[in-house]
């Protein structure tokens, strides 16, 4: 159960994704600890949906915060019909989204991302200015509470 195993699984399956949320913030220097990996995936490519769904099914993905044992089918149809999936898996917690508030769908997210190498994997993370926009657009108290640190990171990097 680790970010490394999830990121490695995603890249091995050739899933087109960009890391967003807390892990992206940590990659840019945030000191906040997050327990879930947030990704934005390419929902336009049928093969990408199938690859991601099969990977998540292999990890026994189940909706987070829901009583165990209820019927849940993890496949491409469920992925297509739920634009944001908050899942718990054998590899760790993961949120998969087909678009990011304040940034847009996968193509826009990818345009505002940068490639990094970490945890033995090469992958893309949302850039810091877009991450700030996304946090602002999400509008939840926990996102707003994160903004001063991210704004400071942006100011110090300039």
């Amino acid at each position: 159960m680790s970010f490394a195993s999830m990121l490695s699984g995603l890249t091995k399956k050739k899933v087109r994704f960009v890391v967003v949320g807390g892990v992206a913030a940590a990659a840019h220097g945030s000191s906040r600890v997050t327990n879930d990996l947030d990704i934005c995936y390419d929902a336009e490519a049928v093969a990408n949906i199938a690859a991601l769904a099969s990977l998540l099914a292999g990890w026994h993905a189940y909706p987070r915060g829901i009583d165990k044992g209820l019927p849940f089918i993890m496949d491409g149809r469920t992925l297509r019909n739920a634009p944001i999936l908050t899942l718990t898996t054998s590899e760790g917690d993961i949120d998969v989204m087909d678009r990011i508030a304040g940034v847009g769908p996968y193509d826009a997210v990818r345009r505002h991302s940068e490639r990094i190498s970490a945890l033995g994997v090469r992958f893309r993370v949302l850039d810091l200015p877009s991450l700030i926009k996304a946090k602002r657009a999400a509008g939840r108290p926990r996102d707003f509470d994160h903004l001063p640190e991210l704004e400071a990171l942006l100011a110090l990097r300039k």
Partner: protein
Amino acid sequence: MTAHQTAVAAGADLKWIVNSAALLGRRVRYNRQQARWWGLVWLLNEQLGLSLKSAAAISTVALRGDSSSTQVIAGADPSGSASLIVDLARYESIFLANLSRALVHETPRRRGRPPRLGLKSGLTTARHYGVDLGLIQSAIRRTPAERLALLEKNAAFVRDMRRRTA
């Protein structure tokens, strides 16, 4: 659950739920069971074009049965030539995905206008907010790989602590 969370769990528009409830003469309650019911009514009414009254009646029939059934015949003509089958396993999967999103992701938003951090410099605001700038400066000196290795280590520690205290 809030009204917004109920609508997200149902996969339906909140205004549609409120208006439909008025048309059906039902009181709207914001909870998991109602979200499950409204979600199916929304699908039948908005996606299949059934009348609201029929969609409501069919949803009640489809969802009152044994939860282990995967398919329910929610309606049929007297000759049995045409019937409406609800794939409960599929519906429940999508409902649970939306319910999880509602509970985990769609937590209540902050009311009012967001703080305008741009009026002051990012550093001034951060200092005012109590952010440790020294910690940020030391994080900036690390590479992304070093930062994520540290996150991995800290996240594992937090998970372990949660397991021990659970």
